[in-house]
Protein backbone atom coordinates (compact mmCIF):
# COMPACT_ATOMS: atom_id res chain seq x y z
CA UNK A 1 0.00 0.00 0.00
CA UNK A 2 1.42 3.38 -1.01
CA UNK A 3 2.29 5.73 1.82
CA UNK A 4 1.85 9.49 1.86
CA UNK A 5 4.44 11.19 4.06
CA UNK A 6 4.30 14.92 4.73
CA UNK A 7 7.43 16.83 5.71
CA UNK A 8 6.07 19.68 7.78
CA UNK A 9 7.09 22.15 10.49
CA UNK A 10 5.02 25.30 10.84
CA UNK A 11 8.13 27.43 10.81
CA UNK A 12 9.98 28.32 7.63
CA UNK A 13 13.67 27.75 6.89
CA UNK A 14 14.03 24.78 9.22
CA UNK A 15 15.00 22.31 6.49
CA UNK A 16 11.75 20.83 5.14
CA UNK A 17 12.75 21.04 1.49
CA UNK A 18 16.28 19.83 2.21
CA UNK A 19 14.79 16.91 4.15
CA UNK A 20 12.11 16.12 1.56
CA UNK A 21 14.79 15.89 -1.12
CA UNK A 22 17.10 13.77 1.05
CA UNK A 23 14.40 11.42 2.31
CA UNK A 24 12.73 10.98 -1.07
CA UNK A 25 16.09 10.22 -2.64
CA UNK A 26 17.02 7.89 0.21
CA UNK A 27 13.83 5.84 -0.18
CA UNK A 28 14.40 5.55 -3.93
CA UNK A 29 18.00 4.43 -3.30
CA UNK A 30 16.52 1.65 -1.17
CA UNK A 31 14.54 0.52 -4.22
CA UNK A 32 11.16 2.06 -3.39
CA UNK A 33 9.52 3.98 -6.20
CA UNK A 34 9.13 7.49 -4.81
CA UNK A 35 7.75 10.83 -5.88
CA UNK A 36 8.43 14.11 -4.09
CA UNK A 37 5.62 16.64 -4.44
CA UNK A 38 6.31 20.35 -3.92
CA UNK A 39 3.35 21.98 -2.12
CA UNK A 40 5.13 25.32 -1.77
CA UNK A 41 3.16 26.98 -4.56
CA UNK A 42 4.63 30.31 -5.57
CA UNK A 43 8.13 29.62 -4.23
CA UNK A 44 9.24 26.45 -6.00
CA UNK A 45 12.35 25.40 -4.14
CA UNK A 46 12.32 21.66 -4.43
CA UNK A 47 13.29 21.58 -8.10
CA UNK A 48 16.34 23.73 -7.30
CA UNK A 49 17.46 21.47 -4.46
CA UNK A 50 16.91 18.47 -6.73
CA UNK A 51 18.71 20.19 -9.60
CA UNK A 52 15.88 19.82 -12.12
CA UNK A 53 14.68 23.41 -12.31
CA UNK A 54 15.42 23.66 -16.00
CA UNK A 55 13.35 20.62 -16.84
CA UNK A 56 10.06 21.93 -15.44
CA UNK A 57 7.40 22.12 -18.16
CA UNK A 58 4.13 21.44 -16.37
CA UNK A 59 3.51 21.58 -12.64
CA UNK A 60 1.25 20.34 -9.82
CA UNK A 61 -1.34 23.09 -10.40
CA UNK A 62 -1.52 22.27 -14.13
CA UNK A 63 -2.33 18.68 -13.22
CA UNK A 64 -4.97 19.74 -10.68
CA UNK A 65 -6.59 22.00 -13.28
CA UNK A 66 -6.52 19.28 -15.94
CA UNK A 67 -4.17 21.31 -18.14
CA UNK A 68 -1.64 18.51 -18.15
CA UNK A 69 -1.60 14.88 -17.10
CA UNK A 70 0.71 13.44 -14.50
CA UNK A 71 3.04 11.85 -17.03
CA UNK A 72 3.66 15.23 -18.57
CA UNK A 73 4.35 16.93 -15.25
CA UNK A 74 6.46 14.32 -13.44
CA UNK A 75 10.19 14.83 -13.77
CA UNK A 76 12.37 11.73 -13.62
CA UNK A 77 15.54 12.11 -11.61
CA UNK A 78 18.64 11.53 -13.70
CA UNK A 79 20.78 10.07 -10.91
CA UNK A 80 18.51 7.71 -9.00
CA UNK A 81 16.14 5.10 -10.40
CA UNK A 82 12.47 5.16 -9.41
CA UNK A 83 12.65 8.78 -8.27
CA UNK A 84 10.34 11.49 -9.60
CA UNK A 85 9.57 15.09 -8.74
CA UNK A 86 6.23 16.86 -9.13
CA UNK A 87 7.20 20.55 -9.13
CA UNK A 88 5.13 23.41 -7.75
CA UNK A 89 3.89 26.27 -9.86
CA UNK A 90 5.78 29.51 -9.61
CA UNK A 91 3.07 31.66 -11.08
CA UNK A 92 -0.07 30.64 -9.21
CA UNK A 93 -0.91 31.19 -5.59
CA UNK A 94 -1.70 28.63 -2.93
CA UNK A 95 -5.47 28.92 -3.46
CA UNK A 96 -4.97 26.87 -6.61
CA UNK A 97 -4.71 23.84 -4.30
CA UNK A 98 -8.19 22.51 -3.61
CA UNK A 99 -8.83 19.59 -1.34
CA UNK A 100 -10.55 17.62 -4.10
CA UNK A 101 -7.91 18.47 -6.66
CA UNK A 102 -5.05 17.47 -4.37
CA UNK A 103 -6.91 14.31 -3.34
CA UNK A 104 -7.35 13.20 -6.94
CA UNK A 105 -3.70 13.75 -7.86
CA UNK A 106 -2.52 11.90 -4.74
CA UNK A 107 -4.88 9.00 -5.51
CA UNK A 108 -3.39 8.71 -8.96
CA UNK A 109 0.16 8.87 -7.58
CA UNK A 110 -0.68 6.12 -5.09
CA UNK A 111 -1.33 3.76 -7.98
CA UNK A 112 2.20 4.24 -9.28
CA UNK A 113 4.45 4.86 -6.29
CA UNK A 114 5.39 3.26 -2.98
CA UNK A 115 6.11 6.59 -1.28
CA UNK A 116 4.70 10.04 -1.88
CA UNK A 117 6.70 12.70 -0.05
CA UNK A 118 4.86 16.00 0.37
CA UNK A 119 7.16 18.99 0.89
CA UNK A 120 5.02 21.41 2.88
CA UNK A 121 5.25 25.19 2.79
CA UNK A 122 5.72 27.03 6.08
CA UNK A 123 2.82 28.33 8.12
CA UNK A 124 -0.52 26.85 9.07
CA UNK A 125 -2.56 28.12 6.14
CA UNK A 126 -4.03 26.54 3.01
CA UNK A 127 -0.80 25.25 1.48
CA UNK A 128 0.44 23.62 4.67
CA UNK A 129 -3.01 22.23 5.51
CA UNK A 130 -3.30 20.71 2.01
CA UNK A 131 0.15 19.14 2.26
CA UNK A 132 -0.69 17.36 5.52
CA UNK A 133 -4.39 16.63 4.93
CA UNK A 134 -4.05 13.24 3.23
CA UNK A 135 -0.88 12.12 5.04
CA UNK A 136 -0.41 8.66 6.53
CA UNK A 137 2.80 9.71 8.26
CA UNK A 138 4.33 13.05 9.18
CA UNK A 139 7.96 14.00 9.53
CA UNK A 140 7.86 16.99 11.84
CA UNK A 141 10.98 18.95 11.02
CA UNK A 142 12.25 20.99 13.94
CA UNK A 143 15.28 23.10 14.77
CA UNK A 144 16.58 23.05 18.35
CA UNK A 145 15.14 26.41 19.28
CA UNK A 146 12.06 27.44 21.21
CA UNK A 147 10.08 29.08 18.40
CA UNK A 148 10.57 26.14 16.06
CA UNK A 149 9.55 23.65 18.74
CA UNK A 150 6.45 25.68 19.49
CA UNK A 151 5.43 25.73 15.82
CA UNK A 152 6.01 22.00 15.52
CA UNK A 153 3.81 21.45 18.55
CA UNK A 154 1.12 23.46 16.84
CA UNK A 155 1.43 21.37 13.69
CA UNK A 156 1.08 18.21 15.79
CA UNK A 157 -2.22 19.56 17.10
CA UNK A 158 -3.38 20.19 13.54
CA UNK A 159 -2.34 16.69 12.44
CA UNK A 160 -4.56 15.40 15.24
CA UNK A 161 -7.59 17.50 14.46
CA UNK A 162 -7.66 18.70 10.87
CA UNK A 163 -6.27 15.84 8.79
CA UNK A 164 -8.30 13.42 6.73
CA UNK A 165 -7.42 10.64 9.17
CA UNK A 166 -8.59 12.72 12.15
CA UNK A 167 -11.80 13.84 10.49
CA UNK A 168 -12.69 10.30 9.50
CA UNK A 169 -11.75 8.80 12.85
CA UNK A 170 -9.17 6.56 11.18
CA UNK A 171 -5.90 5.50 12.83
CA UNK A 172 -3.98 8.68 13.58
CA UNK A 173 -1.13 9.94 11.40
CA UNK A 174 2.15 8.31 12.43
CA UNK A 175 4.41 11.07 13.73
CA UNK A 176 8.18 11.30 13.48
CA UNK A 177 10.47 13.96 14.90
CA UNK A 178 13.32 15.06 12.65
CA UNK A 179 15.67 17.43 14.42
CA UNK A 180 17.63 19.42 11.84
CA UNK A 181 20.43 21.99 11.88
CA UNK A 182 21.60 20.51 15.16
CA UNK A 183 24.67 22.22 16.51
CA UNK A 184 26.23 20.15 19.33
CA UNK A 185 28.68 22.89 20.36
CA UNK A 186 25.93 25.44 20.73
CA UNK A 187 23.78 22.93 22.59
CA UNK A 188 26.68 22.29 24.98
CA UNK A 189 26.94 26.03 25.60
CA UNK A 190 23.23 26.17 26.34
CA UNK A 191 22.52 28.35 23.31
CA UNK A 192 20.24 25.76 21.77
CA UNK A 193 17.85 23.11 23.06
CA UNK A 194 19.23 19.59 23.33
CA UNK A 195 17.78 16.50 21.66
CA UNK A 196 16.35 15.47 25.04
CA UNK A 197 14.72 18.87 25.62
CA UNK A 198 12.96 18.72 22.27
CA UNK A 199 11.96 15.09 22.70
CA UNK A 200 10.48 15.85 26.09
CA UNK A 201 8.43 18.78 24.87
CA UNK A 202 7.12 17.25 21.66
CA UNK A 203 6.82 13.69 23.00
CA UNK A 204 6.94 11.90 19.65
CA UNK A 205 9.46 9.28 18.43
CA UNK A 206 12.77 10.58 17.11
CA UNK A 207 13.48 9.70 13.47
CA UNK A 208 16.78 11.48 13.08
CA UNK A 209 19.11 14.25 14.11
CA UNK A 210 20.75 16.10 11.21
CA UNK A 211 23.77 18.22 12.16
CA UNK A 212 24.22 21.77 10.93
CA UNK A 213 26.60 21.19 8.06
CA UNK A 214 28.38 22.98 5.25
CA UNK A 215 27.68 19.91 3.13
CA UNK A 216 23.96 20.84 3.03
CA UNK A 217 24.76 24.25 1.58
CA UNK A 218 27.15 22.72 -0.96
CA UNK A 219 24.52 20.17 -1.89
CA UNK A 220 21.72 22.65 -2.47
CA UNK A 221 23.98 24.97 -4.42
CA UNK A 222 24.86 22.13 -6.76
CA UNK A 223 21.30 20.82 -6.98
CA UNK A 224 22.19 17.44 -5.56
CA UNK A 225 20.37 16.06 -2.49
CA UNK A 226 22.83 15.83 0.42
CA UNK A 227 22.08 12.15 1.01
CA UNK A 228 24.05 11.41 -2.18
CA UNK A 229 27.12 12.93 -0.49
CA UNK A 230 27.88 9.71 1.36
CA UNK A 231 30.98 11.10 3.06
CA UNK A 232 29.17 14.00 4.69
CA UNK A 233 27.84 14.00 8.24
CA UNK A 234 24.43 15.32 7.15
CA UNK A 235 24.25 12.74 4.36
CA UNK A 236 25.00 9.93 6.81
CA UNK A 237 22.48 11.28 9.32
CA UNK A 238 19.78 11.30 6.62
CA UNK A 239 20.71 7.72 5.63
CA UNK A 240 20.29 6.68 9.26
CA UNK A 241 16.87 8.35 9.32
CA UNK A 242 15.85 6.35 6.23
CA UNK A 243 16.81 3.11 7.99
CA UNK A 244 14.65 4.09 10.96
CA UNK A 245 11.78 5.12 8.72
CA UNK A 246 11.94 1.61 7.24
CA UNK A 247 11.79 0.07 10.69
CA UNK A 248 15.45 -0.49 11.66
CA UNK A 249 16.77 0.47 15.08
CA UNK A 250 20.13 2.18 14.88
CA UNK A 251 22.14 4.43 17.17
CA UNK A 252 22.08 8.17 16.74
CA UNK A 253 25.29 9.82 15.54
CA UNK A 254 26.56 13.42 15.50
CA UNK A 255 24.89 14.28 18.82
CA UNK A 256 28.02 15.49 20.56
CA UNK A 257 30.68 17.99 19.64
CA UNK A 258 33.40 16.42 17.53
CA UNK A 259 36.17 14.87 19.59
CA UNK A 260 39.51 16.52 19.17
CA UNK A 261 42.07 14.48 17.26
CA UNK A 262 44.73 12.58 19.19
CA UNK A 263 47.48 15.10 18.46
CA UNK A 264 45.34 18.00 19.51
CA UNK A 265 44.53 16.16 22.73
CA UNK A 266 48.17 15.52 23.49
CA UNK A 267 49.55 18.84 22.39
CA UNK A 268 46.56 20.97 23.15
CA UNK A 269 44.84 23.08 20.55
Amino acid at each position, binding site marked *: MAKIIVVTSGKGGVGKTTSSAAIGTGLALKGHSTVIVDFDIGLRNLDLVMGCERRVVYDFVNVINGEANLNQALIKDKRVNNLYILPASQTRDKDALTRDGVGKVLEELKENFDYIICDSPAG*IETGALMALYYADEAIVTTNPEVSSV*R*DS*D*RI*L*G*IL*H*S*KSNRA*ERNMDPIKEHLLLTRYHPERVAKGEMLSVDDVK*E*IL*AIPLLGVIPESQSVLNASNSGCPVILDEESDAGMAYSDAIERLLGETIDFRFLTAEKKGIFKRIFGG
Partner: protein
Amino acid sequence: MPLRIIELKGSLFTLSVVKIYSDSLELISSSLSKKLASAPNFFANAPMVADLEKVDDTFPLSELVALFSEFNLVLVGITHASEQQKSYASTHGLAVLNAGKTAPESTEKPEIPPDATNAPAFVASKIVRGNVRSGQQVYAADTDLIITGSVSAGAEVIADGDIHVHGALRGRAIAGAKLNPHARIICQNMQAELISIAGNYLLSDSINSDLWQQAALVELNDGKILISAL
Protein backbone atom coordinates in the same frame (compact mmCIF):
# COMPACT_ATOMS: atom_id res chain seq x y z
CA MET B 1 -13.35 31.16 -10.94
CA PRO B 2 -16.80 29.71 -10.23
CA LEU B 3 -18.91 31.63 -7.76
CA ARG B 4 -18.67 30.06 -4.33
CA ILE B 5 -22.10 28.79 -3.30
CA ILE B 6 -21.30 26.41 -0.49
CA GLU B 7 -18.16 25.14 1.11
CA LEU B 8 -17.78 21.97 3.08
CA LYS B 9 -15.50 22.23 6.04
CA GLY B 10 -14.72 19.97 8.94
CA SER B 11 -15.13 21.78 12.22
CA LEU B 12 -15.31 20.97 15.88
CA PHE B 13 -18.16 22.15 18.05
CA THR B 14 -18.90 21.56 21.67
CA LEU B 15 -22.13 19.67 22.22
CA SER B 16 -23.59 18.94 25.60
CA VAL B 17 -24.65 15.36 26.02
CA VAL B 18 -27.66 14.62 28.19
CA LYS B 19 -27.48 11.08 29.35
CA ILE B 20 -30.88 9.75 30.27
CA TYR B 21 -31.13 7.12 32.96
CA SER B 22 -34.87 6.88 33.39
CA ASP B 23 -37.73 5.98 31.08
CA SER B 24 -40.09 8.21 32.99
CA LEU B 25 -40.67 11.48 31.15
CA GLU B 26 -41.92 13.03 34.38
CA LEU B 27 -38.67 12.32 36.20
CA ILE B 28 -36.64 13.51 33.24
CA SER B 29 -38.69 16.68 33.17
CA SER B 30 -38.19 17.41 36.87
CA SER B 31 -34.43 16.66 36.68
CA LEU B 32 -34.07 18.89 33.66
CA SER B 33 -35.83 21.78 35.31
CA LYS B 34 -33.56 21.48 38.36
CA LYS B 35 -30.45 21.45 36.15
CA LEU B 36 -31.63 24.40 34.14
CA ALA B 37 -32.40 26.42 37.21
CA SER B 38 -28.78 26.08 38.29
CA ALA B 39 -27.33 27.46 35.04
CA PRO B 40 -30.07 28.94 32.86
CA ASN B 41 -27.84 30.96 30.57
CA PHE B 42 -25.53 28.12 29.85
CA PHE B 43 -28.30 25.94 28.52
CA ALA B 44 -30.33 28.53 26.62
CA ASN B 45 -30.49 27.40 22.98
CA ALA B 46 -27.46 25.19 23.55
CA PRO B 47 -27.21 22.26 21.12
CA MET B 48 -27.79 18.99 22.96
CA VAL B 49 -27.32 15.33 22.19
CA ALA B 50 -29.46 12.79 24.05
CA ASP B 51 -27.63 9.63 25.06
CA LEU B 52 -30.21 6.82 25.06
CA GLU B 53 -27.95 4.00 26.20
CA LYS B 54 -29.71 3.47 29.51
CA VAL B 55 -33.29 3.76 28.36
CA ASP B 56 -35.60 1.22 26.79
CA ASP B 57 -35.32 0.54 23.05
CA THR B 58 -38.90 1.64 22.70
CA PHE B 59 -38.44 4.85 24.65
CA PRO B 60 -40.49 7.42 22.70
CA LEU B 61 -38.14 9.91 21.11
CA SER B 62 -41.00 12.10 19.89
CA GLU B 63 -41.97 12.89 23.47
CA LEU B 64 -38.40 13.60 24.46
CA VAL B 65 -38.13 16.07 21.57
CA ALA B 66 -41.29 17.77 22.75
CA LEU B 67 -40.02 17.91 26.31
CA PHE B 68 -36.71 19.45 25.25
CA SER B 69 -38.41 22.13 23.22
CA GLU B 70 -40.60 23.00 26.20
CA PHE B 71 -37.37 23.82 28.00
CA ASN B 72 -36.02 25.74 24.97
CA LEU B 73 -33.28 23.17 24.54
CA VAL B 74 -32.20 22.39 21.00
CA LEU B 75 -31.93 18.66 20.55
CA VAL B 76 -29.65 18.14 17.54
CA GLY B 77 -28.99 14.44 17.76
CA ILE B 78 -29.07 11.17 19.61
CA THR B 79 -26.50 8.57 20.45
CA HIS B 80 -26.64 4.93 21.61
CA ALA B 81 -30.06 4.73 19.98
CA SER B 82 -32.13 1.68 19.10
CA GLU B 83 -33.13 0.97 15.50
CA GLN B 84 -36.59 2.30 16.21
CA GLN B 85 -35.20 5.53 17.64
CA LYS B 86 -32.75 5.88 14.77
CA SER B 87 -35.52 5.61 12.21
CA TYR B 88 -37.48 8.28 14.05
CA ALA B 89 -34.37 10.46 14.03
CA SER B 90 -33.76 10.02 10.32
CA THR B 91 -37.24 11.26 9.44
CA HIS B 92 -37.25 14.12 11.93
CA GLY B 93 -34.00 15.89 11.15
CA LEU B 94 -32.01 14.54 14.09
CA ALA B 95 -28.43 13.36 13.72
CA VAL B 96 -27.48 9.87 14.87
CA LEU B 97 -24.07 10.22 16.47
CA ASN B 98 -21.55 7.60 17.41
CA ALA B 99 -20.39 8.33 20.92
CA GLY B 100 -16.94 9.88 20.82
CA LYS B 101 -13.92 8.68 22.72
CA THR B 102 -13.52 11.90 24.63
CA ALA B 103 -15.96 11.42 27.45
CA PRO B 104 -16.15 7.81 28.47
CA GLU B 105 -18.15 6.92 31.50
CA SER B 106 -16.11 6.42 34.59
CA THR B 107 -16.19 2.78 35.56
CA GLU B 108 -15.37 3.40 39.18
CA LYS B 109 -18.21 5.62 40.24
CA PRO B 110 -21.63 4.05 40.40
CA GLU B 111 -24.28 5.58 38.21
CA ILE B 112 -26.81 7.54 40.14
CA PRO B 113 -30.33 7.17 38.80
CA PRO B 114 -32.14 10.50 38.68
CA ASP B 115 -34.98 9.26 40.81
CA ALA B 116 -32.79 8.59 43.84
CA THR B 117 -33.98 11.32 46.17
CA ASN B 118 -31.58 14.21 46.70
CA ALA B 119 -28.84 12.44 44.80
CA PRO B 120 -26.37 15.02 43.48
CA ALA B 121 -26.36 15.40 39.72
CA PHE B 122 -23.27 13.71 38.38
CA VAL B 123 -21.51 14.73 35.20
CA ALA B 124 -18.76 12.41 34.02
CA SER B 125 -15.32 14.01 33.76
CA LYS B 126 -14.04 14.93 30.36
CA ILE B 127 -10.90 13.06 29.43
CA VAL B 128 -8.33 13.83 26.75
CA ARG B 129 -6.10 10.87 26.00
CA GLY B 130 -2.74 12.30 25.00
CA ASN B 131 -1.46 15.83 24.72
CA VAL B 132 -3.14 19.18 24.22
CA ARG B 133 -0.91 20.95 21.72
CA SER B 134 -0.06 24.61 21.20
CA GLY B 135 -3.01 26.48 19.69
CA GLN B 136 -5.58 23.98 20.95
CA GLN B 137 -8.20 24.68 23.58
CA VAL B 138 -10.21 22.15 25.55
CA TYR B 139 -13.18 23.00 27.73
CA ALA B 140 -14.91 20.67 30.18
CA ALA B 141 -18.35 22.15 30.78
CA ASP B 142 -19.79 21.56 34.26
CA THR B 143 -17.26 18.91 35.08
CA ASP B 144 -13.63 18.01 35.67
CA LEU B 145 -11.03 17.76 32.96
CA ILE B 146 -8.45 15.01 32.82
CA ILE B 147 -5.50 15.19 30.44
CA THR B 148 -3.51 11.94 30.34
CA GLY B 149 -0.55 13.61 28.60
CA SER B 150 0.88 17.12 28.69
CA VAL B 151 -0.51 20.56 27.98
CA SER B 152 1.88 22.40 25.66
CA ALA B 153 2.96 25.99 25.91
CA GLY B 154 0.42 27.95 23.90
CA ALA B 155 -2.41 25.52 24.69
CA GLU B 156 -5.32 26.25 27.01
CA VAL B 157 -7.33 23.87 29.17
CA ILE B 158 -10.47 25.09 30.89
CA ALA B 159 -12.90 23.33 33.22
CA ASP B 160 -15.85 24.34 35.34
CA GLY B 161 -14.54 21.74 37.79
CA ASP B 162 -11.00 20.53 38.55
CA ILE B 163 -8.19 20.04 36.07
CA HIS B 164 -5.84 17.06 36.27
CA VAL B 165 -2.79 16.96 34.03
CA HIS B 166 -0.92 13.67 34.22
CA GLY B 167 2.02 15.02 32.24
CA ALA B 168 3.58 18.46 32.22
CA LEU B 169 1.45 21.59 32.37
CA ARG B 170 3.25 24.12 30.17
CA GLY B 171 0.27 26.08 28.87
CA ARG B 172 -2.65 27.81 30.56
CA ALA B 173 -5.01 26.05 32.96
CA ILE B 174 -8.26 27.67 34.05
CA ALA B 175 -10.24 25.74 36.65
CA GLY B 176 -13.57 26.71 38.19
CA ALA B 177 -14.32 28.75 35.09
CA LYS B 178 -17.84 29.48 36.32
CA LEU B 179 -16.32 30.91 39.50
CA ASN B 180 -16.35 27.76 41.60
CA PRO B 181 -13.85 28.61 44.37
CA HIS B 182 -13.37 24.96 45.32
CA ALA B 183 -11.89 23.99 41.96
CA ARG B 184 -8.30 22.73 41.91
CA ILE B 185 -5.54 22.13 39.40
CA ILE B 186 -3.30 19.12 39.82
CA CYS B 187 -0.36 18.40 37.56
CA GLN B 188 2.65 16.11 37.54
CA ASN B 189 5.02 18.80 36.34
CA MET B 190 4.32 22.47 36.93
CA GLN B 191 5.59 24.77 34.16
CA ALA B 192 2.39 26.68 33.51
CA GLU B 193 2.18 29.97 31.62
CA LEU B 194 -0.89 30.84 33.66
CA ILE B 195 -3.02 29.16 36.27
CA SER B 196 -6.42 30.42 37.27
CA ILE B 197 -9.04 29.35 39.76
CA ALA B 198 -12.46 30.99 39.86
CA GLY B 199 -11.13 34.07 38.12
CA ASN B 200 -8.02 34.52 40.29
CA TYR B 201 -4.87 33.97 38.34
CA LEU B 202 -1.12 33.69 38.59
CA LEU B 203 1.44 34.07 35.81
CA SER B 204 4.47 31.81 35.51
CA ASP B 205 6.75 34.53 36.88
CA SER B 206 4.88 34.40 40.17
CA ILE B 207 5.09 30.66 40.62
CA ASN B 208 7.49 29.74 43.40
CA SER B 209 10.68 28.40 41.84
CA ASP B 210 10.84 25.54 44.36
CA LEU B 211 7.68 24.16 42.81
CA TRP B 212 8.71 24.70 39.21
CA GLN B 213 8.82 21.40 37.31
CA GLN B 214 7.46 19.62 40.38
CA ALA B 215 4.20 17.77 40.89
CA ALA B 216 1.87 20.37 42.33
CA LEU B 217 -1.61 21.12 43.60
CA VAL B 218 -3.18 24.53 43.02
CA GLU B 219 -6.12 25.71 45.08
CA LEU B 220 -7.74 28.87 46.35
CA ASN B 221 -7.08 29.93 49.91
CA ASP B 222 -8.80 33.08 51.17
CA GLY B 223 -9.23 34.24 47.61
CA LYS B 224 -5.52 33.80 46.88
CA ILE B 225 -3.94 31.13 44.74
CA LEU B 226 -1.94 28.66 46.76
CA ILE B 227 0.40 26.13 45.17
CA SER B 228 1.79 23.22 47.12
CA ALA B 229 3.94 20.20 46.31
CA LEU B 230 2.06 16.97 45.84
